[in-house]
Each structure stands twice: as C-alpha cells, then as structure tokens.
C-alpha cells in the first residue's frame, strides 16, 4: 500500500481548503504558465482509452512545468492487450516515473492504481465514474467569471442522467451553497441518488423539463451538455426532444449580464454557432483553463509548492 498518497482519484476526497488552494495555484499558472519547477521529473501519461483532448492538456501542463513526459495513448499498443494486469503495468511504469496520469475504460481503475502504486496517480477519467480535472476546470471557470464560488445559480442542461461532469460538479459544489436548476428531458433527468445527495448535503435544486429564455433568465452559469441519441431507449422520445435542448443566441436576451455559458466539449449541436460570438459564451476559454488547473494538480501530486 502506498504511503505517498497525494493521488487524486475523485474530488470527493478533497477538502474545501484544498479545492480553494488548487484554484489559487491555477490562477498563478494562468498569470505565468511557463515555470521550470519540475525540472528533472518524469511524468507518465497512461491512456488505456484514447482521449486526445485530455491527454494533450495534461502533457502540455507537464511540459510547461519543465517535466519530461513518457507514456502511451492507444489501448491497442499497451501491454494490457497482451493480458498484463493493470497492477503489473503500474508497477513497471512507477519504476521509471515520478507521477502517473492515467485514463482507463474501467470504473475504479484509478482508485485501485492509487492503492498499489508507490508513486502518486492522477485520475484523468475512469470509465463513467470520475474525471476530477474536468470538474476542477469547471470550478475554476466559474470562480474566474463570477468572481466567487459562493451562492451561484447554476443551470445544468441536457443529459443529467449519464453526464459524469454534472454529477461530480454537485459533489464539488457542496461547500459553496449553490442553487442548481436541472433542465433535462424526462428520460435523461437527474437520477434520484444524486437528488438525494443534494438533500443530504443541503444543496438546493429545482427541476425543469422546458428549456427557454424565461427559465434561464436567473442563471449565473449555464452548463450545457450533449443529448446523445444512444442514451435513449425510445427513439421517438429522442426525436421529440433532440432539438428542445439546443441553446440559440436569441434565448440569451434578458439573461443576467454576468451569465457565462460553459460546456465540457466536444460540442455537437447543442449550442448553435450563433452563440459563439456572444460575449457570454465561455466554453473555449474554459477548455484553456484546463491547462492551468492541470498544472496545479500535477504540482500538488508531487508536493511542489507554487509561489
């Protein structure tokens, strides 16, 4: 069992103070991203499932910190296809590197790796389970655009049933007294277990099935997600609702001046192109914030102070 547990498996393991400290460090990296504070360190990125977007962001973060990066990004070339266990792969890579950033198609893979690895693990996504760096960049984007994290009105739109980013946002925001609005078709509504989580943690929420200008007028944050065809058991239902959860620019008339629109990306058609020019659209900057947040996460895992 590892004694160095600076691993990041899920945001649920982090205190409010730790979350705020990581966000503060991310802001320092935004002000000055190129810092060679990881000179001589080797970071391994193990992507058992491909995710170019997340891998490039982590690798850029490591490179900007002056670390060297080793790893693989294609399941077909990994030893796991030859029947090697995850444990053996982790033990082998931990001989060469100081930190492992891993993405895996199996749920709980990062937790297990963190238990057996002698070096810290950062979870870059484990199946449908957790993706803490995405949630951290969502938090960073909210704090940056709103000047605070407390008392925000956050509207989550689209697939609230399967969307792991919206679920971990509930967990991470429990410290900050938010009011959530869940806007989703019935088939993709927020699962009961998460609504119960909100009640247990004193998180206010209101549910809607309609998505229109009047519903979103009170939003500070509009968090859009994809409504995917393959999530529906009833395709008639999909045809009926597929266009009902698309954000158009004219729906933003009358919205609050501080409103910002977030999206974990990639987008398909749930935000129409005419929104991109609106100054309230924030999803591209949001993705860029991922870099600074990941720099902060890497330094935290390696116990490196950021000043």
């Amino acid at each position, binding site marked *: 069992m590892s004694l160095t547990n600076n691993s990041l498996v899920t945001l649920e393991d982090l205190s409010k103070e730790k979350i705020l400290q990581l966000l503060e460090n991310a802001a320092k990296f935004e002000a000055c991203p190129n810092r060679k504070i990881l000179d001589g360190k080797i970071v391994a990125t193990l992507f058992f499932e491909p995710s170019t977007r997340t891998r490039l962001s982590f690798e850029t973060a490591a490179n900007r910190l002056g670390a060297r990066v080793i790893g693989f990004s294609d399941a077909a070339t990994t030893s796991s296809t030859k029947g090697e*266990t*995850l*444990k053996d792969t982790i033990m082998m890579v931990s001989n060469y590197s100081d930190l492992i950033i891993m993405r*895996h*198609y*199996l*749920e*709980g*893979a990062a*937790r*297990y790796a963190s238990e057996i690895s002698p070096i810290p693990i950062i979870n870059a996504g*484990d*199946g*449908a*389970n957790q993706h803490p760096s995405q949630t951290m960049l969502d938090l960073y984007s909210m704090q940056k655009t709103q000047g605070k994290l407390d008392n925000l009105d956050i509207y989550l739109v689209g697939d609230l049933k399967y969307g792991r980013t919206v679920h971990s946002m509930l967990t991470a925001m429990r410290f900050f007294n938010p009011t959530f609005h869940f806007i989703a078709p019935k088939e993709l509504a927020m699962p009961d*277990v998460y609504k119960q989580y909100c009640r247990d943690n004193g998180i206010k929420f209101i549910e809607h099935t309609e998505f229109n200008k009047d519903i979103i007028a009170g939003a500070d944050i509009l968090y859009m997600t994809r409504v995917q065809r393959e999530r529906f058991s009833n395709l008639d239902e999909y045809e009926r609702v597929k266009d009902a959860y698309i954000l158009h620019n004219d729906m933003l008339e009358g919205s609050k001046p501080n409103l910002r629109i977030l999206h974990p990306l990639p987008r398909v058609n749930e935000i129409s192109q005419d929104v991109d020019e609106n100054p309230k659209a924030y999803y591209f900057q949001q993705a860029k914030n991922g870099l600074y947040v990941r720099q902060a996460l890497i330094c935290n895992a390696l116990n490196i102070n950021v000043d």
Partner: protein
Amino acid sequence: MGKTELKVAAIENGTVIDHIPADRVFTVVDILGLQKLDNTITIGFNLKSKKSEKKGLIKISDHYFTDLEIARLACVAPNISISLIRNYEIVDKHTVSLPDQVVDTVKCSNPKCITNHEPMATRFITVDKVAGTLRCAYCNREISVDEIIFK
C-alpha cells in the same frame, strides 16, 4: 419462557439462527449450503416476532458455522441473531450486523468495474447497516441485499 425459546432449547447441540426476515429464509439456506448437510434441520416460516413482524428461524443440530459463513450471512440478512447451543444451553448469542467494510466477500455487480477484471480483492463500504446497502469502494456502484452475489 416464551414459545420461541422453548423451541430453541429443543436442540441439544448446534446453531439457531433467528430473526431472519421472512423473505430471506431460502437465501440463508442457500448461503450456508444447508441442503448439503445431513444434520437435522428445522426451518420455521412466518413466525410472529415480538414486534409482531413475520420472521424465519432455522435450527441446525450438531453444526457450527465459520466466521466467513457468518460474514456472508450478514450481507444478505443483516440483524439476524445466532445462538450456539451446547447441552441444551445457549452458550453464545449475538446479533450479526454488517461491518463498516466488507472485504473480498461480495462481487461487484458492475461489469465495467475494475474488480471484475483484475485479480484483486473487492471492497464495499456499508452505506446502510439496517437495510443492507453496500457501495463499491472502486466504482461507487451501490448494491442492495437483493442483488448480492458472492465471490
């Protein structure tokens, strides 16, 4: 002396399992593999408990169970009581309850859980001791007593 206790006293040596929820009697029979034993076994159904809820009771003569068997029992029928009888006397009686963690006993029902793909121990956190709800420490899947599959 109540009638139930009289029945308990009726075996000379062995184990009495009491306060089994009425709908779990057969599950308990399965888990302990009672159908494979040659011992005298009495199974009571729909008995009225003190709280006048229906319960089941099983008496097994000349047989005692291992800690592992008892631990498995606790997962599917939390809050049952086990009495050890020697020479018509109850020498030990205790209520089994779910431990805070259930290690390497239960299989995770999520086919995409790492525990179903690696040669590793499973671990569940007990969410609700009374209802018997467990949460996988790896994939976070919650399973209830009705869904439990043993490793």
